[in-house]
């Protein structure tokens, strides 16, 4: 770790403006960090040449006074984003060798703002997972370790590689995507800020689809301000995405520093789930106290259908996925296995190309949409989803934000929770409801568990009110004064 890689994105950007170092120097420092961190398996494709070429161009623009919002800033890009000429495989075997001839809207906007891609980051296959264990590239490793315990931990998922990379200082920020918690949960596991914007805020064009009605891109960063900066570059209407919303993109960073005075913060009783560790409940209470101390008013609220969010999600998301993943058939791109005939080619290609969790979800999704089961499963789930969204709408009539924990536990060890899919799914119990309702939500690092692992607090906001979410997140960030660093930065993984 060098001084340059330990800067926040905002600090690094300011330093570039002051010419304290060049974009090339900043990039080289991060390249060295990526090279040293290969054991973390956070980055699945290194794009150093491209980053350096981009950095040189950034230096010219910085010199010419034409620098963009994220000029010269090295970022990690989740492998779910299609990047022109660079592998974009959703960390799935079935997309072997796939190099898009096109650039996703979000990454295109990032490059237009001057950002640089240092590499594609590891993830759960097709974003299905909460541990990064389902990646065809093998698991990414969390740079954090429990105190006095050398077991390797998961970084969370599905944006696990992005979280591990930002936490290990391999890049100043990274893109993630969040379908049921895939930005927020890994952010919590890795001590980062992870922001899922309102559904429709960032274009989904060029992002490999998992569950179309839920997928949303967002930033993983080390500070709330960095998240605000990245979101500004990523967000915006896109005529190529019918669900993209045409509403102006505010200067999110400008909303910071205003505090939470007078805000009403909803504390939903239903989030006190059975078996939630005391330390997480304590942190949650602490979060409410911090906001209160800053002038906000915590209010007990009810979101009565919270317990149905997770089963709803595990019908809706696999159903959409079963259809979205039908295009991986060995005809136009990616893996193709030989078969006796076309049908056999399909079945063999898809059996070999999809990992276990993806196969499981595609089968569940196929089942819940099939004749005779659609009404009982899929249709009922979409109705319950309406009810859950209505709960939030009613709650937001009396509060500005909802505060919850991000995840029911800290990062777990590789190999844990692998036997029971439902135990794994429970990781997303606090993040899924906001996803179902399409609401903006953020995870902020707020403290450490008894064994020294980061824990996150979670704020949910009103549609397109990312500014209020970020303001309150900054208040939590300041109050928590989270300064702990992952073990990786101290010892490079050596015990």
């Amino acid at each position, binding site marked *: 770790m060098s001084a340059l890689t330990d800067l926040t994105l905002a600090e690094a950007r300011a330093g570039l403006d002051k010419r304290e170092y060049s974009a090339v120097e900043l990039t080289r420092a991060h390249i060295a960090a990526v090279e040293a961190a290969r054991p973390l398996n956070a980055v699945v494709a290194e794009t150093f040449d491209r980053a350096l070429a981009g950095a040189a161009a950034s230096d010219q623009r910085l010199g010419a006074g034409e620098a963009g919002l994220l000029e010269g800033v090295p970022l990690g890009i989740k492998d779910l984003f299609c990047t022109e000429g660079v592998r974009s495989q959703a960390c799935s075997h079935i997309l072997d060798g796939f190099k898009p001839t096109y650039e*996703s809207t979000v990454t295109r906007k990032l490059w237009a703002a001057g950002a640089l891609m240092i590499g594609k980051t590891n993830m759960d296959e097709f974003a299905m997972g909460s541990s990064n264990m389902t990646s065809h590239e093998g698991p990414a490793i969390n740079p954090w370790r429990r105190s006095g315990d050398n077991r390797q931990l998961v970084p969370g998922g599905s944006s696990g590689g992005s979280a591990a990379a930002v936490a290990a200082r391999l890049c100043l920020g990274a893109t993630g995507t969040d379908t049921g918690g895939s930005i927020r949960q890994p952010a919590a596991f890795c001590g980062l800020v992870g922001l899922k914007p309102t559904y429709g805020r960032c274009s989904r064009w*060029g992002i490999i689809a998992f*569950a179309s009605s839920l997928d949303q891109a967002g930033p993983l960063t080390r500070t709330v301000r960095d998240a605000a900066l990245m979101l500004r570059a990523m967000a915006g209407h896109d005529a190529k995405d019918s669900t993209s919303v045409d509403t102006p993109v505010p200067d999110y960073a400008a909303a910071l520093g205003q505090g939470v005075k007078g805000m009403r913060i909803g504390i939903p009783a239903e989030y006190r789930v059975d078996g939630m560790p005391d330390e997480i409940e304590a942190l949650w209470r602490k979060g409410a106290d911090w906001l209160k101390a800053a002038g906000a008013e915590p209010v007990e609220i009810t979101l009565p259908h919270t317990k149905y969010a997770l089963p709803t999600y595990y019908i809706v998301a696999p159903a959409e996925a*079963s259809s979205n993943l*039908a295009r991986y*058939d060995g005809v136009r791109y990616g893996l193709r296995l030989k078969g006796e005939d076309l049908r056999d080619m399909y079945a063999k290609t898809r059996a070999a190309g999809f990992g276990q969790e993806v196969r499981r979800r595609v089968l569940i999704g196929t089942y819940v949409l*099939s*004749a005779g089961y659609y009404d009982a499963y899929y249709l009922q789930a979409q109705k319950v989803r309406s009810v859950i969204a209505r709960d939030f709408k009613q709650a937001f009539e009396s509060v500005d934000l909802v505060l919850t924990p991000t995840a029911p536990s800290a990062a777990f060890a590789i190999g844990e929770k692998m036997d029971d899919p439902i135990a794994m799914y429970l990781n997303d119990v606090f993040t899924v409801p906001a996803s179902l309702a399409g609401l903006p939500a953020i995870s902020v690092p707020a403290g450490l568990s008894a064994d020294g692992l980061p824990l996150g607090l979670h704020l949910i906001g009103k549609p397109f009110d990312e500014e209020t979410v970020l303001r309150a997140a900054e208040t939590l960030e300041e109050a928590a004064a989270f300064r702990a660093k992952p073990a990786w930065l101290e010892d490079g993984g050596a015990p």
Partner: protein
Amino acid sequence: MSGVVEGRTGPWEMVIGLEIHAQVTSKAKLFSGAATAFGAEPNTQVSLVDAAMPGMLPVINGYCVEQAVRTGLALGAEIKLFSVFDRKNYFYPDLPAGYQISQFSQPVVGHGTVVIDLKDGSTREIGITRLHMEMDAGKSVHDLRADATHVDLNRSGVALMEIVSEPDIRSPEEAGAYVRKLRSILRYVGTCDGNMEEGSLRCDVNISMRRPGEAYGTRAEIKNVNSVRYMMKAIEYEAERQVEILEDGGSVALETRLFDARTSTTRAMRSKEEAHDYRYFPDPDLLPLELDAAWVESLRAGLPELPDAKKARFIEQFGLSPYDAGVLVAEQDSAAFFEAVAAGHDGKLAANWVTGDLFGALKKAGLGIGQSPVSVDRLGGLIERIQDNTISGRIAKEVFEIMFESGRDADTVIAEKGLKQVTDVGAIEAVVDQVIADNPDKTAEFRGGKDKLMGWFVGQVMKASKVKANPQMANQVLAKKLKG
């Protein structure tokens, strides 16, 4: 073939429903900006969306929505202000996404009616169940290599309207009349060019047989019929096939069959799937389609006069027979041509000329009405010369032929060829006198009471006058002179 098949055990009645896929005449596809032109090189009219590349999303073509609504209005159908796009999931190499975007549970157009015109001048109403928008699939080519199928995605994503009829059709003739009428309506509103050869209009036939008046039997679906004639042949064959099965005590399989134009037979598709389970669900990439009632009304107001209304008007205004009126209104251009010719002339005469000589000559020359060498004004000019007795109807046919070949106007042709009708009594009397003088035997026979010879005498006078004598005058003069 009538709609009833006489089997060994008694009569069987055909029950037919048609699913028409009509390609919307749009420049770009339903969900992408790729072109729709026919006959392009393979995969040159394909966007990343049409090829279902990872991360690609559909955005609907507003013009196609408008055309579907206009078609629904032209079918007198209910327009749904709220409709939904669903995914129909199945695997096929020419369906890149593994699903077709269609409208299943909530289509944009509901119940409507098509009035079909039958040969005997009668009409029947055929119910329309629904019309929905959907994207076309690509094309699989099976004959380029023995061991492989080639896939061209140019058609993938082209906008289609699927128009589903009620099982109201009872014979091949009715099926033919239904397709022709629907095609005519689509062409009137300009939402589909109706070209069956290029596949812009495709037809799937659902057919079953039943004892008259009894409940419907099991149906078979026939695909791959790409002309009205083939469709009628397919129905005929399929009806016989089903009756044979039923009379032998068997049951008709609910299956999809392909029509083979070479043998005029149908056969079961070999690639039998397990029972289809399309797993329809609303496409999460698209929001529901919500239409503004005022917008729909403005489209309704902007519709042209449709074939049925035009036919009724032609009958009323020009005194045409329902058959002639039906023939004239089938194509909007023909109707317009007729109406322009009929303006200021005798309507029936104009109708006879347009549906008779003009249509015949155009068909022979392989030309459309828009390419007619005889313009509206010139055909009107010819009819004028008939009406003012300058030429006879028979000479007019000769004049028309020359006009059609040379592109000249009637008066020029009449003058050049000296075809002006002789109406001078003196000149006709001279010819009549000569004919009588040349044929004393026949004259004697006539005068002896053989009245039937009158026709023969008129013929001789016309011949001697090179057909220019006014036939009525020739008659009158002959009658007077022969009897005198």
